[in-house]
């Protein structure tokens, strides 16, 4: 009758997962191709900048703007990987700090100061600066074109634009190059301790999701951190007006990374790792919450800077859906895998 062994725990089986396989898949099929894509698009942007510089026509401006958007979209797939090679060149800070200080940009153009490495220029460069320079604020296309042709500082403006692009290009090239050799280091480290590949990846993903995806693209602009006062100028691509496209690209890329998915192929990802480590329930939860968040983001419309005012409640809903991913992603998943979340978003007391 008392067949059940009372009080004894089930014999723990050794959990098995091909971590190296997962790291290889993620590196080879998610990370490296994303950077290579970015590199291709930034090169195209550079060429378009040259063409526009030589022949400053409305046609070339349109082409330049579209190449810019493509590059910005491909950046969304790379922004999460701020560790290793990207961290070494502070890629994210160099490519995507927004909002930019437009007065500073104008002043830089005016005085032909092109040293983007100055700490003071941290909010006067990258994609957001190009966004401002190419679209201007409340300016017609003709107005913007005139700044590059008729205006007194037109030559400086062109030079600034070229510098913005080439500065990113240099850093992106460096990252792509370093990943060549870093890839084997990354996939070869199958520890779970702080600084191991999976620790870097999981921490980077969490830091990115919270700080850059949730906060940067939605929470801050819609006013979550400013007592409900919407801050339209804090949207990504505020001047070009395609913030929602960038958000969707970013969320989708994040989901694919989690799944180890590339194109239509679903390779080894964190989801598989969770399942192998008895974490299917957590995986199901993360998948569901991510799906919810992505579905919610499709209700948004560009320009987001207007959406957050005309339909603030809808945008706040998207924020709350994004927020729901955090608990399973930041607490349950790392705990199940034995990875420590080692970054503190402390503002000191």
């Amino acid at each position, binding site marked *: 009758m008392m067949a059940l062994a009372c009080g004894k725990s089930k014999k723990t089986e050794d959990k098995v997962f091909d971590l190296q396989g997962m790291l290889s898949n993620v590196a080879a099929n998610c990370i490296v191709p994303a950077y290579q894509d970015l590199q291709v698009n930034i090169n195209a942007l550079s060429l378009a900048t040259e063409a526009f510089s030589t022949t400053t026509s409305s046609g070339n401006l349109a082409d330049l703007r579209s190449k810019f958007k493509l590059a910005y979209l491909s950046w969304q797939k790379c922004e999460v990987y701020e560790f290793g090679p990207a961290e070494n060149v502070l890629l994210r800070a160099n490519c995507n700090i927004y909002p930019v200080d437009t007065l500073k940009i104008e002043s830089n153009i005016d005085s032909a100061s092109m040293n983007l490495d100055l700490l003071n220029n941290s909010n006067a460069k990258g994609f957001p600066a190009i966004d401002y320079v190419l679209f201007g604020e409340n300016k017609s296309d003709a107005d913007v074109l005139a700044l590059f042709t008729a205006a007194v500082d037109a030559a400086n403006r062109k030079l600034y634009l070229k510098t913005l692009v080439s500065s990113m290009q240099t850093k992106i090239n460096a990252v792509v190059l370093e990943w060549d050799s870093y890839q084997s280091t990354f996939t070869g480290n199958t520890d779970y301790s702080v600084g191991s590949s999976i620790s870097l990846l999981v921490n980077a993903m969490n830091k990115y999701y919270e700080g850059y995806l949730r906060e940067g693209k939605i929470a801050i602009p819609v006013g979550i951190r400013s007592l409900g006062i919407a801050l339209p100028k804090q949207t990504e691509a505020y001047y070009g007006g395609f913030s929602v496209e960038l958000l969707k690209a970013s969320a989708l890329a994040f989901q694919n990374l989690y799944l180890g998915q590339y194109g239509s192929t679903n390779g080894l990802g964190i989801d598989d790792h969770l399942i192998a480590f008895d974490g299917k329930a957590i995986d199901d939860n993360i998948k569901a919450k991510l799906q919810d968040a992505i579905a919610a983001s499709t209700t948004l419309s560009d320009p987001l800077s207007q959406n957050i005012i005309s339909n603030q409640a809808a945008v706040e809903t998207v924020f709350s859906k994004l927020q729901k991913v955090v608990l399973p992603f930041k607490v349950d998943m790392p705990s199940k895998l034995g990875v420590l979340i080692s970054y503190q978003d402390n503002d*000191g007391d």
Partner: protein
Amino acid sequence: MKKHTNIAPFIAVAIGISSFFNSCTKDPIAKHAIPATYAFTKNDVSTVNYAGQTDRLKQLDEMVSLVETASEGTKISGQAMKDMFANTGGNGGGNFSFTSSRQLKDKAFFLDTDWFNTFFDQLAAASDSAAINVQAKNGCAGLLTRSSNAKILLNANGLEFKEGMEKSVMFSVFLYKIMNDYLSESKLGDAVDNTTAIDNANYTSLEHHADEAFGYLGAPIDFKSNYTGATAPLFWAEYLGDFDAALGCADKVMLAFKTMRTAIVNKDNTVKNEQRKVIAKEMEIMVAAAAIHYVNESLKDVNQGDRLHHLSELWGFVKALGYFDPTQRSTTSTELENLLTNELGTNLWNVTEQGMNDIKNFLASRYNLEAMKSSL
């Protein structure tokens, strides 16, 4: 005689089975009880630390004291005020009586920076006027004498500088941080670590954040309703005391903080999250009640100085309502904007009886204070 089936053997078996199952479950870990004061320890060492918050309360206290000297004719330097606000050099540019690594400015709601700068400049200019005894009138900063013969210094719109100084930091720093930072998901949510000791100390992030929220309250650890302790409750705690007779809010808020903190020690997220809401709710009710009180006071005032003093307090409390978490609070930004811009107005000299009654009735209705609105 009916035969009763002897159920005793069944009961015995049932007990036997249930105790069989009981012996398989672990004894529940003993939960900590809610302490009488806000005191929490591990191995007899306190785990509570809100030194940063205490420093900032002290800084405000000294800034307010300095502002008050202006009504006695002392000229105040705008730069000195800014230095104190930013704690330049660690001692407010030499104006604080103590050094600290903390400051008020970088914790203030970031959209208020311009307001503070303007306020300090206005204060400096007004103190110059006060030094030559310029009297305040509509559109002109200067002194007024209250019915108690105390002198107060007002800006051109009738805002008393002392009240402006005190209330602005109370809502832009203390309340803002409690409600939008320390009690928020990012600092007190379930995803925040509650296992690892931080800061080379013996408390977890979750414990520390809860303590930091408490620190901004300004309450002595043994604070409660009908408090007679030696340590003065400061700022928000002081008002909890003031409105405690009407609302019981001192006990309510203290209990909520202690219960929340105990829940954190007990790793009980459910209770923790409940108490976060209780704190926000009871504080908000107190602020609304305080606003109603100051409406009542100003409607009774005959002396202009008294009235503008009470209206300045009112301003502070209506503004404060806007510093609660917008996703939880009971008033919308639009409603608050209406109260401030239309009902109270930006010039306290031009306040109308209608505006006062509108504010009072709106708040009484929204916060279920109808029954006591006349006696607050």
